[in-house]
Structures are given as structure tokens and as C-alpha cells.
């Protein structure tokens, strides 16, 4: 917002009003773009539903290993930090910190470790409720194990 204020030399109210108008315009035209606010930063991005169509056009915003750690947390949540580290290795500490900072994961103290679970932002980001994502993952792992046994 500060950058927008500096760039446009308009006050916050005027900018928010303009953003609101833009959002309405994009919604009414049913375009593939959405404008939204994330942790004080305004973003103009491809709509979540259309992401699979453009996924090869540009790289992912998070590195693979970070997404893997997030996947493990989603799958087993609420999950102890120590268990995540056991599954993912020591690099998971760094990943968890970043995921908490990005507001994808929240942590509660549990004895000497942390209990981790995904946040509302996580659901908004992936466009599905955490329970649905978790179910998808459980289904996925069942299929994976079955096919693995078959492969072996």
C-alpha cells in the first residue's frame, strides 16, 4: 500500500476505492484475473481455478521441498513438529518457520515441541477447505500404497 501511495501520490482511501472498482470490473467481465490482498500486499493473479492451465508458463512461487513439507503437514494435521522433522529431515525446521511466517501454518506449543495445522489462508490459497484437502491426501496415499504393493 505504501508503494502504491508513493507511486500514485494518492491517499489510502482513494487507492482502496480504485482497487474496489477494478475488482468489480474484473469480476463483471468474468476474466481469468483476480485482484486480492494478501498480508498487506495487493496481488493481481490468475484465478485459482485456472491455475492448472497456466502452470507450465512460469515457475512455482515456492520451492518443491517446501511444498512437500506443507503437504506432510496437511496430510497428518494436527501434527507435531518433531514428527514432521522425522519425516522430512532437519530442513523441515526452516520450512515450518517460513510456512508460519507466510501464514499457511499455525503452531501451538505442545510440551517441548509444536503442534502444527494449516490456516484459513491455506484454504483460501488452494480454494478448498482443509478437511477436503486432507481427505484428498488420505485417498491419494491409499492409492499410492496400493499401487506400490502392486508394483512390488
Amino acid at each position, binding site marked *: 500500500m505504501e508503494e502504491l501511495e508513493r507511486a500514485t501520490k494518492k491517499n489510502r482511501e482513494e487507492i482502496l476505492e480504485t482497487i474496489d472498482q477494478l475488482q468489480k470490473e474484473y469480476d463483471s467481465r468474468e476474466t481469468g484475473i483476480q485482484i486480492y490482498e494478501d498480508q498487506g500486499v495487493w496481488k493481481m493473479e490468475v484465478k485459482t481455478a485456472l491455475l492448472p492451465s497456466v502452470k507450465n508458463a512460469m*515457475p512455482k512461487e515456492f520451492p518443491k521441498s517446501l511444498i512437500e513439507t506443507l503437504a506432510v503437514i496437511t496430510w497428518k494435521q494436527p501434527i507435531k513438529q518433531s514428527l514432521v522433522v522425522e519425516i522430512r529431515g532437519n530442513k523441515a525446521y526452516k520450512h515450518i518457520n517460513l510456512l508460519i511466517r507466510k501464514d499457511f501454518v499455525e503452531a501451538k506449543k505442545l510440551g517441548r515441541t509444536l503442534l502444527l495445522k494449516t490456516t484459513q489462508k491455506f484454504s483460501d490459497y488452494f*480454494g478448498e477447505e482443509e478437511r477436503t484437502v486432507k481427505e484428498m491426501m488420505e485417498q*491419494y496415499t491409499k492409492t499410492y500404497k496400493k499401487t506400490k504393493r502392486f508394483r512390488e
Partner: protein
Amino acid sequence: MQDQIVTLVFSKSEITWETLLLEIVKQEGFNPWDINISALTERYVKTIRRLEKLDFKLSGKVLLAASILLRIKADHILEKEVSKQEKQEILEEIKEEELDELNKKKIIPRIPMPRERRVTLNELVESLRKAIEVKERRVIRHGEIAKRKIEVEFKKKNIVSRIKNLYQNILSFFNKKKEVFFTDLLPSKKRDDVVDTFVPLVFLADENKITLEQEKLFGEIRIKKNEDFGGSPDVREEHRSDDGGARKSDQKKQGRDT
């Protein structure tokens, strides 16, 4: 003049501001105003149309020549035709409001936005497979490490006899010469031989049979015989162990110095 510049731009394979200036300087009574940049670019456009294809090298050359000429002209105005006072007057003429207007029109550099996309739900689900695979690999690897037998070979050496032999050796050297050095005692300069000679030597020094002197770090070790122990080697019972016991740290310390 105009034609010469145009010929230069179109004919020479490489053009730099030096070649352009050289051509201009060659002409007497040069005045940069005589070169019409728009005429130059028009000629270029015509040539391109005639060629019926895009020549990026030619475009680059024309653009470069035009920019060099424009720069020469601009410098010429500022340095030659407009005095400092006039410059000041021109600047004052531009009122603050106009400056503001100019600032508004300035191109605002794009706020650095990452050219990255969001992660899709499918990618998140699929990455779980990768995480599971990595975990399974780690479990297998750890299991393999736990099962693996590691065989370590220990050489059995009798430290007592080694001390005795070395002391005999030292005494025989002292019969021949007054000074004995550590390197005299070494069968070879191999690491094992150095260690096997040094360790019993430290024991002998500890028993006050000999004195060791080393002037420089990593330098030669001088061995001196202690007169009180001139007789036959007598190794004390307390050293009759292969590991050296509590002396280990001393040995290590001195071993580093050799």
C-alpha cells in the same frame, strides 16, 4: 555531408562513435546542425522497404548513428550556444508546477513483482508422494546403515618391547656419536614408522632416561641421554600396557608437534 554520413552508416559493417566523429572531423567547417537526423532515418526506412526484409544490424546502426548525432547536437547546444546564465534562466522559466507535471509523467519503475505463479492443489497432493518416497528411502538407508558391519583392524603391538628396542637403538647411536636426532631413529619417513618411533620415545622421556628438545615447532627433535640412566634399558612395570593409559593426551599433544 548528409550523404557521406548516410553512406558511412549503410556501408560500414561496424559503426562506432569514433568512426562517425572521424568522418565528421574530416569535413571542414563542420556544423552538427547540418546533419538532418530525420532525413537519415527516412533514408533508412526507404532502404528497408526496398530490401523488403528486416535487417536488425542495419536498424541498430541507424539507431546508434542517430543517437550519437543527437547527443553531439545536444552537447553542442549546451556547451557552445547556451551560456551558464542562459541555462539558469531556462531552468527558472520552468515553473515548479510544470516540474511537478513532468514528474507525474515520469515513468514509474515497475514495483518488483515476482514472475511466479501460485501452487495448485494437484501439485500439493502430488508432492506428498514425493515426500513419502523420500521418507521411505531414508528409512531404508538408515536400516542399511544399522545392519552394516564395520570391521576395524587393530594392530597388536607390544609397546614394552618397542620401548626396549628403541632405547637399545638410541644407546648404540650414542656409542657412535654425541648427538642423536629423531630422524636418525626412523626406519623410514612413512607415517606409521614416525608414530611407532615417536610413541616409545615419549615413554623414555617420561621415564627420564632421555631428554627431548625441539627448538622449532615441527623441527628436528634432539635426543639427549640422561647420565643417571646410562645402563641397560629398564622399563617400568606401570607402562606395561599397550594403550599408554593416561599418557594418551600428552602423546597426542606432542604428536601434533612432530
